[in-house]
């Protein structure tokens, strides 16, 4: 048996040993220069690690804030401004005329994506099994939610995955005696709030139904129209509106992306779940895909990343009509088609064709 206490020194140093063990280790240290030296070395390791500077590129945090803001703006409900009744009526009529056929298209099981982020098609990674996808969503804040309200509509799988597993699972069990130093993030036991949410959601559901969208299943890429936004504004249904808007932004394409998320997820999965609502976001996504392909040129998803960079570039052009985006995308596309290892030339040609007037 090892007479020394080296295995306990780490916890001793952190003050995490039970009192009896702590006293025993302290007594040993008083008479053992070897263990005392060992302890000093462990302390020196920690001190040296703490001295390692955090390397942050200049301007990074401003860029991070901007990225988060843009992503949130892309998924927030329309601002609630009062508009004249005639304007709302005109908007409703226009939207009905224009979007209803589109909505019907989107309801198809495999509605081809022509908006938002391009859908993975040729060569897209096979859909991951649910447990694989869940592996990453485990990182989602384990914020337990109250018992589901009785009238809460069933959510599609994609939406559930987006919202994260945290809302589907109870918080990890924590011994009740333990001080909850870490927020078992947000155990909010407000049943009344759940009831209020249910009532709110019900009002919104009614409002949507009144506008003719009853029975449209959200999992089919339900894309509510501005009428829905109007109804949400009128009913003050912020929570439902956010979800509806998120689904609208995500649309059928986003749902397909969820299903096509590769096993293992990781960085690829993080990027594949991004949605874009503006040219700037599409550019940011394009750059992120380029960086991914650059970092892992021989990786299993490098080809897919190159193609997605091109498609995101095309999306940037469609959204912003900035000629620089079109030029860059054409250049990226040509470079891709010249690659001997290009696996998805047809998909890239299609993206390039979409740049033509």
């Amino acid at each position, binding site marked *: 048996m090892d007479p020394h206490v*080296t295995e306990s020194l*780490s*916890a001793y140093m*952190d003050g*995490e040993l039970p009192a009896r063990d702590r006293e025993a280790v302290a007594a040993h240290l008083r008479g053992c220069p070897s263990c005392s030296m060992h302890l000093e*070395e*462990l302390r*020196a*390791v920690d*001190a*040296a*690690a703490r*001295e*390692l*500077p955090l*390397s*942050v*590129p200049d301007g*990074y*945090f401003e860029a*991070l*804030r901007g990225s*988060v803001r843009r*992503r*949130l703006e892309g998924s*927030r409900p329309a601002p609630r401004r009062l508009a004249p009744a005639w304007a709302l009526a005109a908007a409703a009529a226009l939207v009905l005329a224009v979007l209803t056929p589109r909505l019907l298209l989107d309801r198809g099981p495999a509605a081809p994506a022509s908006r938002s982020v391009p859908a993975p098609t040729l060569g897209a990674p096979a859909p991951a099994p649910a447990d694989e996808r869940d592996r*990453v969503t485990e*990182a*989602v*804040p384990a*914020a*337990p*939610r109250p018992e589901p309200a009785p009238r809460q509509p069933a959510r599609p799988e994609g939406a559930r995955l*987006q*919202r994260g597993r*945290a*809302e589907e699972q109870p918080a*990890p069990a*924590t011994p009740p005696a333990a*001080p*909850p*130093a*870490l*927020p078992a*993030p*947000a*155990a*909010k036991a407000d049943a009344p709030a759940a009831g209020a949410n249910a009532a709110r959601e019900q009002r919104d559901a009614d409002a949507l139904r009144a506008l003719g969208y009853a029975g449209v299943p959200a999992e089919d890429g339900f894309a509510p129209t501005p009428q829905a936004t109007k109804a949400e504004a009128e009913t003050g249904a912020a929570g439902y509106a956010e979800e509806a808007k998120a689904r609208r932004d995500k649309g059928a394409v986003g749902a397909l992306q969820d299903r096509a998320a*590769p*096993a*293992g*997820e*990781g*960085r690829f999965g*993080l*990027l594949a779940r991004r949605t874009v609502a503006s040219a700037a976001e599409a550019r940011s996504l394009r750059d992120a895909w380029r*960086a*991914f392909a650059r*970092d*892992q040129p021989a990786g299993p998803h490098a080809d897919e990343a190159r193609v997605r960079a091109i498609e995101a570039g095309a999306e940037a052009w469609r959204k912003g009509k900035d000629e620089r985006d079109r030029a860059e995308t054409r250049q990226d596309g040509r470079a891709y088609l010249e690659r001997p290892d290009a696996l998805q030339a047809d998909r890239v040609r299609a993206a390039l064709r979409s740049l033509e007037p």
Partner: protein
Amino acid sequence: MHAADPVEADLLARARGGSLLAFEEIVKRYERRVYGIALRIVRRHEVADDVAQEAFMRAHQALSTFDLDRPFGPWICRIAANLAINHVRSPEARETPLPEGHAETAAPGRGALDLVLEREAREMLERALGDLPVEQRAVFALRTFEELSYREIADALGISIGTVMSRLSRARERLRESLAPYLGLAARRAEGG
């Protein structure tokens, strides 16, 4: 139970009500911690950036269920740590060392030999940290840089306190072995304040 900072609780309440400005303030408060955790686990800026963004997005999505009486910091750190660990465990992860010289900061008033040794030691430590299994690295990062308690780390990573204890001990031992040639220098510096 921790009482949350009232200013922060107010920001979170407003963010929950839809204020992006309020949430941006929250991001500003925690961006360095979140990015730091991510970087120390994934070891690459681009990936740490993805993780940091995603952590804030997921926190925002789950704000409606967040208890404002609790501190936000450990929660967002937990999200970031888990995202980072998931990334490193994923087949897509191809970890490469951080760019050379990224951590160059010369301490003033030291001799040339000390500076060289310090730089070598830092590089050695960076490499050794990168060589740790991600589970050990995450525990080490949360303890050493975030100063979380064992209970907090256990809760954050969904493991037992005993596992935290053993992973941390193993991580430190490995780092100690890697740094053995330089530990005299570190001890001298510690003595010299």
